[in-house]
C-alpha cells in the first residue's frame, strides 16, 4: 500500500491538492520502456524477474511502444550510430516523460572512450537519474527507479510548460 499524501481528512472524506493525487498516481504506475543494449540490460532482466520484481513499484507493464511509455530506461553502451535512434525513441514519447541512465556506459561512455561510442546519453537527450555501476546490481536499478518516483511525485503539474523546461529541450534541439 502506498501512503496517502498530506491532506485534510475526517469522517467519510479526504481532501488534498490535485497535483499530489496525480503525482501519486503517476509515480506508482510508471510504464518503462527498456532500451537495453548490453550487459546492464541483463541486470535489468533480473530486476524485472521474480527475485527483485520491479512490478512491486507499479512498473509491471513494459511498454515497448514509446507512445505509451512514461520512463525511458537506457541500459548499456550507446554507439554513435545508435544515438539518432535513441533520440527518435525519446521524441516519440509523450509528455510527461522521464529518463533514467543505467550504468557507466549510458551515463558517460564508461570504459569505451573511443571514436565509435557516445560519451554519455546526456549529449543527445536530457537525463533525470543516473545509476552508477558496471553493471549496477538490480538493487541499484530499483533505487534509481525509486529516485524517479520521488521526482514524479513532487513534480509540479506545470513543469512541462515552464520556460526552463522548454529551454532545456531547446538546448538539445528537441521540439
Amino acid at each position, binding site marked *: 500500500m502506498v501512503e496517502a499524501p498530506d491532506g485534510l481528512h475526517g469522517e467519510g472524506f479526504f481532501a488534498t491538492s490535485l497535483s499530489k493525487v496525480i503525482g501519486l498516481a503517476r509515480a506508482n504506475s510508471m510504464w518503462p520502456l527498456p532500451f537495453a543494449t548490453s550487459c546492464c540490460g541483463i541486470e535489468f532482466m533480473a530486476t524485472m524477474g521474480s527475485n527483485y520484481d520491479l512490478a512491486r513499484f507499479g512498473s509491471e507493464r513494459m511498454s515497448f511502444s514509446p507512445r505509451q511509455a512514461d520512463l525511458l530506461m537506457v541500459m548499456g553502451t550507446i554507439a554513435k550510430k545508435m544515438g539518432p535512434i535513441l533520440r527518435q525513441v525519446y521524441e516519440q514519447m509523450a509528455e510527461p516523460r522521464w529518463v533514467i541512465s543505467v550504468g557507466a556506459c549510458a551515463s558517460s561512455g564508461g570504459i569505451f*572512450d573511443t*571514436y*565509435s561510442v557516445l560519451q554519455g546519453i546526456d549529449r543527445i537527450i536530457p537525463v533525470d537519474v543516473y545509476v552508477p555501476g558496471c553493471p549496477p546490481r538490480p538493487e541499484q536499478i530499483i533505487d534509481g527507479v525509486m529516485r524517479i518516483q520521488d521526482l514524479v511525485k513532487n513534480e509540479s503539474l506545470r513543469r512541462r510548460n515552464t520556460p526552463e523546461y522548454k529551454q532545456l529541450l531547446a538546448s538539445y534541439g528537441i521540439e
Partner: protein
Amino acid sequence: MALNNETVLSRLKEHFGDAVLDSYENFDYLNIEIDASRNAEILRFLKIDTQMNFIYLTDLCAVHMPDQTGKELGVVYHLHNLEENYRLRIKAWLNINNPEIASATSIWKGANWMERETYDFFGVVFTGHPNLRRILNVDHMEVFPLRKEFPLEDSTREDKDDRFFGR
C-alpha cells in the same frame, strides 16, 4: 593431390611469375605477397582452379603500417580450401595516397560486406564493388578510424585530466 605450402606456391609462381612478390611461413601457414594490381586474376585463379579450389573466403581485412613508405596499406585475404582443410593468406600492399584495389565481390559474394568494412575503417577503395559505403560507423564520419594517424579516443571529451593518463 594433397595441397601443401610448396605445391601452392609453385603453382602460383608457374602461372603468375613475377606477380608473386614474396612468400614466407608463419606457424606453418603460407603467406604470399602479390602485386596489388593483379589481385583479381590471382584470386580468381585460386578459386576456380581445380587444384587450388579455395572456395571459401574466410576473411578480408587491412593493416596500416605507416613506416613502410610506399606500401603503407595492406589488404589481407584469408582463403580456405574446405575440401582439404588447407588455409592460405594473401597480402597485397598499396600506397596510402592511392589506396585502390580491384574488388573480389565477383569471385566470392561474401567479400561484399568485408570490403565495405575494410573501406569503412581503412579507406581502401575497392574498384568494381557494387555498393562501397560505410557499414559499421556513422555515415557522416570523416576519418578512417583504424588508420594510425587518427586517435582511438573520442575527441569530444573535456573531462579527462592528462596527468592521470601519463601524458
